[in-house]
């Protein structure tokens, strides 16, 4: 057990559960009478409450974005590379809020939590949640924390979609939206990958139409396959090549179908680990939220029209080898912002890791992100 944590870490942190009992109307037409959100915060909210930054998580993320829960933790929070003292989102200056979104499986109300009206798990009866629903719930969280306006709302991938949605739904409640490795809408190919993942889960005989808990089973196989497919889309061909190449686990071919290549055993391992820790119904819900996200839809596909109400400044970052949400998708968003005469800065970061690059600190990414956030901090007196 280590007796110290890195000096640029937020250190030991603990989550808190915040209960809401004002009903929330959801896009699907249903509502939740009450719900919980699990939240972590880092840094200190200043007297004017002007230095708050909201971190929105991606598909499999959660509230634990930075620091450690105990000295025994092998790994820090999922975005520890960007959040901490002296890091791009500098916790010496900002008050950072990160939550597990509604429908998640890390403590916030979701398919794997208890439905208060029945006393049983929600399971597949938990309503389908959209990005706009998340943003609405996050706005209520901001109210509860005494934050009228975020200095910035920040997110990568699906998190970036939430930052974009914030700027449309609550234009006066954020000064900046930082949208990293994201997209204004999924392509047919993106939806197709999600559908394969969902089919993997729902066709697992242990899925039981989402009521696997009642059957005391878990659709491990399906969730594992879903994660394997997803994982492939997070990495670039070059990154996989670099990491595994055609390397075999043993010296020669065995002329069978077990995992012989390193990449096979890596994917199986990742998939298995994920299937033990993530809820299958939540996975379905999150992928559906991704599919549905399309703020331009109501405006005949014209994103610049959808952007009309926005008041914040945008920072958009993409990564050269990201083929899941490629730089072209970010540029689509940036061009709509330009047409709508919004303030926007954009950079395409050269990085070899594909979509996952948004989690990996590279000098150019860190420098650009730091410079932008430094300027945000100066603007809000942090």
């Amino acid at each position: 057990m280590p007796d110290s944590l890195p000096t640029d870490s937020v250190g030991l942190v603990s989550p808190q559960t915040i209960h809401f009992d004002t009903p929330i109307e959801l896009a699907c037409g249903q509502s939740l009478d009450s719900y919980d959100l699990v939240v972590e915060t880092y840094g200190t909210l200043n007297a004017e409450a002007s230095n708050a930054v909201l971190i929105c998580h991606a598909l499999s993320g959660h509230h634990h974005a930075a620091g450690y829960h105990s000295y025994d933790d092998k790994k820090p929070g999922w975005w520890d590379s960007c959040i901490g003292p002296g890091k791009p989102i500098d916790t010496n200056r900002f008050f950072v809020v990160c939550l597990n979104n509604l429908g998640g499986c890390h403590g916030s109300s979701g398919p794997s939590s208890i439905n208060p009206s029945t006393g049983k798990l929600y399971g597949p009866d938990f309503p389908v949640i959209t990005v706009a629903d998340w943003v609405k719930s996050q706005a209520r969280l901001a109210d509860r924390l005494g934050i009228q306006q975020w200095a910035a709302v920040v997110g990568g991938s699906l998190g970036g979609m939430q930052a974009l949605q914030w700027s449309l739904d609550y234009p006066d409640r954020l000064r900046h939206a930082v949208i990293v490795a994201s997209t204004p809408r999924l392509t047919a190919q993106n939806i197709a990958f999600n559908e394969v993942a969902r089919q993997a889960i729902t066709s697992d005989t242990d899925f039981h139409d989402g009521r696997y808990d009642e059957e005391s089973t878990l659709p491990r196989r399906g969730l594992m396959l879903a994660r394997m497919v997803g994982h492939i889309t997070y990495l670039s061909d070059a990154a996989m090549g670099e990491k595994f190449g055609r390397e075999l686990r043993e010296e020669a071919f065995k002329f069978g179908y077990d995992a012989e290549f390193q990449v096979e055993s890596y994917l199986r391992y990742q998939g298995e680990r994920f299937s033990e820790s993530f809820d299958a119904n939540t996975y379905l819900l999150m992928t559906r939220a991704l599919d549905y996200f399309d703020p331009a839809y109501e405006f005949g596909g014209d994103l610049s029209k959808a952007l009309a109400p926005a008041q914040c400044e945008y920072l958009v970052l993409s990564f050269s080898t990201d083929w899941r949400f490629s730089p072209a998708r970010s540029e689509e968003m940036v061009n709509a912002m330009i047409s709508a005469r919004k303030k926007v800065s954009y950079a395409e970061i050269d990085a070899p890791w594909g979509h996952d690059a948004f989690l990996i600190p590279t000098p150019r990414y860190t420098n650009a992100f730091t410079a932008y956030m430094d300027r945000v901090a100066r603007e809000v007196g942090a």
Partner: protein
Amino acid sequence: MRADLEIIQQWVEPGHHVLDLGCGDGTLLHYLQQERNATGFGLEINPDHITTCMGKGVSVIEQNLDTQGLDNFGDGMFDIVLMTQALQAVRRPDKVIDEMLRLGREGIVTFPNFAHWRLRWGLALSGRMPESDALPYKWYNTPNIRLCTFKDFEALCRQKGIKIKSRRVVDGQHQNSWLARAWPNLLGEIAIYRITREHT
């Protein structure tokens, strides 16, 4: 502030929407934002410059004029489109000028004069490609692939029916000397042109 930037800022009116092609570290746009309440974007490809712009609060877009063009900007979106010391580094300056005046009512272009006496003298005397403070590169590594003289530029404008609203000429230290004004194509090192398609 550099004399050329000082001249340019006088041509920008309060509240103007400005596009700066090759905005560098954002010095000019930052100044225009602060002093002229201007809005707009800078386009840049140098990563360090882009980072510096972001830190200053200058809206900067990573975009390469040669490979990506300017199709993502709509007609007449800007009051002024600027291009300082970058015209000579793009592949098709003529097309860039057309684009500038498609996007903006007015264009401001600055570039080094290849007919400056020191460059003429250097070439005549040594028979080697000239170098100067404004053009400090070797022939094989220079980003300045489309050098021209003031006369060349003005001929191109005439050919395209572009009106030159003003021309200011400065020397290598960006000073606005009377000698450079008197014999610009011989003694001027850098010219600042204000161009438009609007004939009033």
